[in-house]
């Protein structure tokens, strides 16, 4: 009997422990990625509160700074300005890139005329142009828009080009066999088939556009979010810098993943 009681007494905490362990290992199996990020944030918070590194603010301080920033109307105005610049610049890039990408993929003449530049600048560090853009476009609004455009243009063009180039020629033949003309083939076969690729390009273009816009603001005219970053960086207010970086990161990731989701949806439907 005593034996049984012993076993019972021993097994109860063990059972609880194993339940905890099961929960932990279950969570680890299910959401390992989220746990890694959560763990890093916790480590960051601890390091920040203990002031282990001279310039590392804690998460709490960063959140406080973020709240302070969000209460200030001039910060909202800066966001408005930056996002507008990114929107306009990306829209111009997408418009131009669509026309150039589609026509380059379909016409060897257009490809001969423009392919070289697209090929060169898609992998070149376009950031090097930012000071030049300041020189050419002045220090105003148009310089930042131009920066965004240049950052976003080449990715979108190349994606459009590749998407159109890779359209299954059998589909085009099929459409022709049913009497589709050149225009109908373009609008009913080629562009819809290339759309997932273009959307992927759009996602990348927006990411680069955000990057370009902020870099332009930092280097050319010290306005908008880039301007705020330069200001707080120069003033060594690292909690505000981190808060802004997180805001930029969240907005960029949200925008890009929304577009990617749209792209995935198209692709799924085409399978």
């Amino acid at each position, binding site marked *: 009997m005593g034996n049984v009681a012993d076993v019972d007494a021993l097994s109860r905490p063990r059972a609880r422990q194993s339940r905890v362990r099961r929960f932990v290992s279950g969570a680890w*199996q*299910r*959401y*390992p*990625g*989220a746990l*890694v*990020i959560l763990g*890093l944030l916790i480590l960051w918070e601890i390091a920040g509160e203990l002031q282990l590194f001279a*310039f590392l603010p804690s998460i709490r301080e960063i959140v406080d700074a973020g709240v302070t920033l969000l209460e200030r109307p001039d910060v909202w105005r800066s966001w408005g300005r930056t996002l507008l610049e990114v929107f306009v610049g990306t829209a111009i890039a997408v418009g131009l890139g669509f026309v150039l990408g589609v026509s380059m993929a379909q016409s*060897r003449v257009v*490809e*001969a*005329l*423009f*392919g*070289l530049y697209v*090929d060169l600048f*898609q*992998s*070149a*560090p376009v*950031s*090097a142009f*930012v*000071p*030049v853009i300041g*020189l*050419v*476009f002045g220090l105003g609004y*148009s310089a930042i828009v131009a920066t965004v455009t240049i950052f976003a243009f080449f990715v979108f063009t*190349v*994606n459009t080009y*590749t*998407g159109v*180039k890779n359209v299954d020629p059998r589909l085009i033949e099929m459409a022709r066999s049913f009497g589709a003309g050149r225009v109908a083939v373009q609008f009913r076969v080629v562009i819809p088939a290339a759309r997932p690729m273009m959307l*992927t390009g759009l996602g*990348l273009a927006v990411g680069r556009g955000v*990057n370009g816009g*902020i*870099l332009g603001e*930092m*280097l050319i005219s010290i306005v908008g*979010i*880039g301007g705020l*970053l*330069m200001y707080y*960086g120069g003033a060594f207010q*690292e909690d505000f*810098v*981190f808060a*802004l*970086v997180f805001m*930029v*990161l969240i907005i*960029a*990731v949200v925008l890009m*993943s929304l577009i*990617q989701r749209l792209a*995935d949806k198209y692709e799924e439907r085409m399978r």
Partner: protein
Amino acid sequence: MDAGDGTSPGGAAVVQPRPALVKVRAPGREWWFLPLRILSVVVLLGAWQAFGGQERSGIEFLPRFSDVVQGLVSLVQDDEFWRATRDTVQVLVLGYALTVVVGIPIGVVMGAKHIVRRALRPLVGILLATPIAPLVPILIIMLGIGISARVATIFILAVPILIENTAASVATVPRRLVDMGHSFGASRRQLAMAVIVPASLPGIFAGLRLAAGRAVVGMVVGELIIASAGLGQLIQLYSTTFDAPKLFATVVAVLLIGLGAVQLVQIAERRSGRWRR
């Protein structure tokens, strides 16, 4: 955020070749293709020469093409320029080396171990999407304006793409090749060295190429914002003194370094991949 987590049960995460970096097709066989291409360059440079050097509506200032060429010539004779170039290239090499040394092992482990891949992919995904420019002020605060902040900028920008590509290519080594090695009694080490690494080499090289491109971007962004040394400092100098020809010329030099770096990796890639053709 990153849909890759949990949506691919059991299966290897197949990462499509990055569409953004598909190479635009090389000149074709038409006799007129190359002449037309040359014509387009000539017309562009001619238009630049004719249009530049004056102020126009909407344009502040554009130096003429010949001015830029002159700027380039005087730059090449300038010791200051070569010192800056050496400094820039040194930082690039350091940052890239760090990227390779850290990125490939992490990528291989991620590719081989499914749970590690699932654990780290969201983090890598966030890093891939992180805009680099706003991080530079933080790096300045933490590391100062010396060489380490610039190396860190390169590393942060370049390492995620290398990890991602390495992991994806290791994870997608054809199952049948692993089985084959296994069936002939290969040990884990033999399997890794004789099958998995060579089979994933094309993907790793693609990652190295993309990482080189991003490393160059990191180099430029870091130097433009930090502007304490290297070609970035020269660019800042010439743009604040409105020395347009030299500014353009320095930018051209930076672009050439970038293209050269990517080209080097591509040469190595082609050498390693003779069997693919």
